[in-house]
């Protein structure tokens, strides 16, 4: 037996639990328990620190508490620092002795037996929630009092509330159902109807296809133009809802995203959202020059709707376009939609006339310690840095696909749909 056979490393002593995700978790993610702090209610009395320190050390010693209240004397604001029990806690991989674990109940705990009080977890945590006791040098971190937080009970102003998280993300369920049904109808049942569809006096047409048609034929057919109105009116009323809830290619991209969660990144020189407007101009210009709808031959939505139906399966060379463009998903979520889709470009331009907007009230949200909205946004339009600064980010509605993931995910109800003319963000008074 060699010496190597006896060597033990951290992996042998405290193996990192494998990240397993069951299929059911995609639709009903495990609950995320944490404490919500309401800065508008907090008077800074420190009752939370008192009771927390009593539990931690057996005596009233506010500096030994796992929750800290900070008063900004100039602004007259109170802040609390407490563990948010993040879904993917940064303190966990940072701990050199693997003393931090996230339990099945979602609570992030420090195992005092293994903790060497190095304080790296505090540095890794965006909220600096692990607090070093200046007396005992121990690291204290909220463990939600094992599911019954004392600070919440003792707060005289109800500035702290305990939540076990959302049990069911109904927007998510609704959106996936809508996407699936749309896919079924447009790709399998009514093949090719997305590009043009007419029954009696009612007709529907793709707006990008219509623009190319006008350019290639040199004539404006009123029926053709009016056919695009349904989609354009929907966009004016509800933003680019089509992209997030109906588009069959968007559905394919969301599915591909699920199987390729790790992204390799997109070259920065290609990261221009204006590209799609260039593609649109090219499509219209090309159609004018060549006399046919050039982009329609490679349009992933069109090819998906025309070529993947039961009848058309294996009959067309167009079949390769969808997987080719869907493979862009390994670089970035919804890459096609962000940078190239000319249909999205037309809807984006129409969205300039939108009636609604999505707004994230930084006053209501946890800012730097959460930013889940920015993480879940498939088109990456939520400015996490602004949130970290405590400012409400401006969401460009021409780019927003109205998937409402931010609203669904936000644990603080800070993300809301508002009418365009409403100025105040959630948590900033009357609208």
């Amino acid at each position, binding site marked *: 037996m060699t010496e190597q056979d006896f060597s033990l490393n951290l992996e042998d002593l405290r193996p990192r639990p494998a990240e397993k995700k069951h299929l059911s978790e995609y639709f009903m993610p495990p609950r995320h328990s944490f404490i919500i702090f309401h800065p508008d209610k907090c*008077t800074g009395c*420190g009752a939370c620190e008192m009771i927390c320190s009593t539990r931690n050390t057996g005596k009233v*010693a506010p500096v030994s508490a796992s929750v800290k209240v900070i008063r900004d004397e100039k602004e007259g604001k109170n802040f609390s620092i407490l563990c948010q029990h993040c879904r993917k806690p940064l303190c966990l991989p940072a701990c050199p002795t693997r003393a931090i674990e996230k339990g099945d109940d979602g609570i992030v705990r420090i195992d005092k037996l293994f903790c060497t009080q190095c304080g790296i977890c505090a540095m890794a945590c965006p909220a600096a929630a692990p607090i070093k006791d200046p007396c005992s040098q121990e690291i204290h971190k909220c463990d939600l009092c094992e599911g019954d937080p004392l600070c919440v009970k003792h707060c005289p102003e109800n500035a702290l509330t305990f939540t076990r998280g959302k049990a069911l993300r109904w927007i998510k369920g609704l959106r996936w159902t809508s996407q699936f049904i749309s896919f079924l109808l447009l790709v399998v049942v009514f093949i090719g109807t997305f590009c043009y569809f007419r029954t009696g006096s009612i007709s529907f047409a793709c707006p990008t296809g219509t623009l190319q048609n006008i350019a290639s034929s040199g004539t404006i057919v009123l029926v053709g133009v009016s056919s695009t109105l349904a989609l354009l009116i929907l966009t004016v009323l509800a933003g680019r809802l089509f992209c997030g809830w109906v588009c069959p290619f968007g559905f394919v991209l969301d599915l591909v995203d699920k199987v390729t969660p790790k992204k390799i990144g997109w070259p920065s020189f290609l990261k221009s959202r204006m590209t799609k407007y260039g593609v649109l101009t090219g499509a219209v210009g090309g159609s004018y020059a060549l006399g046919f709808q050039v982009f329609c031959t490679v349009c992933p939505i069109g090819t998906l709707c025309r070529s993947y139906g039961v009848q058309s399966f294996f009959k067309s060379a167009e079949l390769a376009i969808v997987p080719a463009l869907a493979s862009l998903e390994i670089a970035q979520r919804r890459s096609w939609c962000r940078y190239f889709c000319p249909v999205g470009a037309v809807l984006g331009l129409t969205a300039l006339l939108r009636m609604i907007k999505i707004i994230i009230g930084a006053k209501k949200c946890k800012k730097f310690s959460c930013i889940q909205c920015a993480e879940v946004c498939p088109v990456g339009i939520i400015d996490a840095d602004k949130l970290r600064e405590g400012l409400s980010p401006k969401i460009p509605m021409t780019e927003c696909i109205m998937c409402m993931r931010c609203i669904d995910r936000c644990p603080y109800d800070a993300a809301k749909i508002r009418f365009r003319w409403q100025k105040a963000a959630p948590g900033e008074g009357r609208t």
Partner: protein
Amino acid sequence: MNSFQPFYNRKIGVVDLSASKAEVIPLVQKQVSRHIGGAAMNSAILEGYQDDALVFGTGPLTGSFAPASSLMIASFASLVFNSICHVPFMLRTGPDMKFSGIDYLVVKGTAPERSILHVNHGKIRTLPAGNLQHMHIPEAIRELKKASPLFQSVIITGPAADRGIPFASVSIGTNGSLDKAGLASLMAAKNLKGIMLGGTEGLPFNRDNPQQGKELEKIISTDKNFKHRGFYSVLKKLEGGEEAGKFLKASGEKDMACYHCPSPCMTHVRYSWHDPRKKEMQNSKEGLLLLDHTGYAALAEKVGKNILPVLRACLHYGLDPAAVAEKLSEGGTMLEYLNAIDKIISDNPPQTTDVSQRQCLFGGGLPPILTGDVLEKKVAIAMILGVCPIFLLRFAQITDATLLSFISTSEEDLTTLQEGLSSAISSL
């Protein structure tokens, strides 16, 4: 009776500024049983030292689960009123002093140079503070945060005390205080700039019954004073307070509480103003924590709508707003008021004020929201036990018996405590 054991560190810190020495002596159980704590204990300690000594103390309930247990009391022979005065300090000063490991701090002698004390882990250090001389209070605190050891609370004197103005006032952080009895002048005479409280330790108190405070909170929650909170709720009970409250319509208001207080009587206001002494026409936004009700009411009566910037100037210089109000005339402009305050600071010899009309009830800054013996008794109970006197004045439901039950629930102990408290009250 050992009921007091978990409520005190049982340590008295004695600082001799002349010799730059500090020692810690034990707090004798007999003394505690006799005087209970707070102002009564301060007076007893003060008797053992020379006239110019200064005692900072806490009550047994300071820092505990009792509501509004935020009090620290400074006792000294006031040169303004020629009597022993007890100035209450709220916010977090009381608990932070206790959690710094000492219950009472005696300051005697005069330092050879401007000094500041740092108290933590039951030890007292004297640090030089010459660089803070004549600095505005916010600026001095910024300097302290940069250069000094960690502290949770600080009480500090400003340029007004540095210049020997008799109506200078000590400030808790940048927020001012209820000192209207010349404590700041005495500290300045001792070359003592301030006291930093580390507050990194703790005490067990009645840890087995942390719910007791919550239960009391339920009782007082039915009182109408519980619903009417914030600075204005107390201000309007003062003479001319309702009129003065009209100027509080600032852009942003938020009620703030002292340590473990369920019913805040302070308000943070944000306002926008333009300093007329500056050439730039740009408005700046400022914030102010209002805690001195009597000072605000007196100043508002004189300066009207200019109150917030003028009050801010007083707090920056460490001046008592009520005394400044006596120096100002009605109907002036903001520029005139600010120049008048600058003149108070720069005048040589310093201006004086007539105190014959003022009451020296425990430092002179407590709002007289009750009258007669009830007021004096309630304040005395609060000042002995270490609970905020304003809180006690607002809620009739809270009696001495209610507060003593936080120390012990045994019948026998309660009887002894009650006797001790009565004797302590009469000694004040």
